[in-house]
């Protein structure tokens, strides 16, 4: 994750969920560089509650007896369990808490060597900004064997709570294709959205020859941050529909090397596409959805003026009406627009800026441009 500099601290996190590391988030003193605190994203006891369902109640098809036997034989796998943190935390200076999501367990697909819920992988986690002490967490997928982890950054906004009253909430877009809505106080799940992409055969276990399950391992929603229009109560997410098979293989860890425990393969004969989706986070309903020609990766921007901007792998950068989803404008950038747009003002004039660098994960045409537009 890129550093977050806030209130005299530099926050960093590590990737490495594909390499058998033990993930962490750390705070350093911005002036001296001295370590202030360290939080291991994998606790010494990573076993959890032997949960058999995901956060939305879907059966995970775990063999708990086999996992317990593996735990008794090999012990807690916490030292090599992964748990990278891909994206920046959301910071709440009012409560002095940070919120971030933790990525997949290592190895991704081969769960037999890592018995237990694999805490805090695939989880929303909250810490105290000043001490790094644990506040709360919610695990989306205990003992994930599909790499359907939590990677898109958390958004803090006011949502309707379980009692129907406005409360401080957290939004996260999962690789599962759901937008999860949490209570910021205790991380608990208030609701989750309708699925933004097709979900099929969830959670069929990976096999030696490959089991088809949707979404594919890129999601749903990948690292792409969401945007929010608080006046409309809408969260905007970009989606991938990329059918894959999940294969499991017995693999030993080699320090510092890619360790997936199998492979995820795009099914070449199946159609792929993307979506731009507006989700009403107070009801979980999809308000509007626009299909794109390719799976979407990058980011999205919502302006107070009622516009939504996002780019595609084919180089098109588009503006939509934030309330209706009607496409209003597009620009061909010549390379994949796979980055979150941003907006700023100079002398009263509003600009929209975005990078057109392409994308390695989906192999979209590389470029080297940052392009700014005015809203005349």
């Amino acid at each position, binding site marked *: 994750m890129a550093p977050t500099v806030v209130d005299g601290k530099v926050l960093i996190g590590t990737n490495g969920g594909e390499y058998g590391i033990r993930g962490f988030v750390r705070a350093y003193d911005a002036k001296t560089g001295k370590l202030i605190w360290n939080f291991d994203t994998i606790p010494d006891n990573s076993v959890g509650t032997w949960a058999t369902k995901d956060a939305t109640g879907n059966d995970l098809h775990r063999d708990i007896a086999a996992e317990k036997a593996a735990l008794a034989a090999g012990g807690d796998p916490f030292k090599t369990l992964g748990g990278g943190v891909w994206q920046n935390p959301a910071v709440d200076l009012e409560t002095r808490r940070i919120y971030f999501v933790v990525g997949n367990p290592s*190895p991704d697909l081969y769960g037999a060597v890592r018995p237990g819920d694999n805490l805090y992988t695939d989880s929303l986690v909250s810490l105290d900004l000043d001490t790094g002490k644990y506040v709360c967490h919610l695990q989306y997928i205990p003992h994930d064997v599909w790499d359907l982890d939590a990677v898109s950054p958390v958004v803090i906004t006011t949502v309707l709570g379980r009692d129907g009253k406005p409360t401080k909430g957290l939004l996260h877009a999962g690789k599962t294709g759901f937008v999860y809505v949490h209570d910021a106080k205790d991380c608990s799940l208030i609701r989750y959205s309708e699925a933004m992409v097709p979900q099929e055969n969830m959670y069929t276990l990976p096999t030696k020859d490959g089991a088809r399950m949707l979404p594919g391992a890129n999601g749903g929603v990948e690292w792409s941050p969401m945007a929010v229009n608080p006046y409309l109560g809408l969260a905007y997410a970009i989606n991938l529909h990329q059918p894959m098979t999940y294969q499991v293989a017995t*693999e030993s860890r080699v320090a*510092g*090397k890619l*360790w997936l425990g199998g492979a995820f393969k795009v099914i070449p004969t199946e159609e792929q596409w993307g979506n731009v989706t507006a989700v009403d986070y107070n009801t979980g309903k999809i308000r509007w959805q626009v299909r794109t020609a390719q799976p979407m990766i990058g980011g999205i921007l919502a302006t107070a003026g009622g516009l939504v901007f996002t780019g595609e792998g084919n180089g098109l950068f588009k503006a939509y009406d934030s309330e209706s989803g009607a496409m209003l404008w597009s620009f061909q950038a010549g390379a994949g627009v796979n980055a979150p747009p941003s907006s700023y003002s100079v002398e009263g004039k509003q600009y929209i800026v975005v990078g057109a660098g392409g994308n390695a994960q989906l192999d979209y045409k590389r470029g080297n441009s940052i392009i700014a537009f005015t809203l005349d």
Partner: protein
Amino acid sequence: MRRRSGALGAGLVAIVIGAVSAASADPVEDKAALCGACHGQRGVPVSKDIPIIWGQQEGYLYLQLRDFKSGARSNEIMSRMVAGLERDDMLALAAFFAAKPWPDTGQPAASEADARAAKTTSASIGCPACHSDRFQGDGTVPRVAGQNEAYLAKTLADFRTGARANNPGMAAFVRATSEADLVALENYLAGL
């Protein structure tokens, strides 16, 4: 077969040690000259099953030298070559070769059918996610575009059998791909 290639390598090494006995001022260049016995004094390896290392990614070259020394990657000749190298030597050699231009070996472009099959395979297992744009590699991930075809074939076969054991992730992707698709991929990459 393995023993024969080992004997050939040892002979070449002996010749080169003689050739560089008049040491140059730069100790890295001295060591690099030894490498050139097999990997080519001008970057074109003396045999098609030996990898091109001129212009290869620096991080990748260092990690392979390290792994040959630790035994994580196994090769009779290379294990002997790196036995006396320290970390700084390996880092210097990696930087030295990474700074050289990638040689043109004149390998032919793949047939249309092979190119099509290779692109499908690459998109399916996601090669560019690590090997980057046009298979040029990045950091600790090697360039594979234009690599010697016989070396690519041997490497993928070794990943498949487990003879090459220093990257379980690569082994998994190779094992998840049919041998026919791997052949097409080798032809395609070599011809880039």
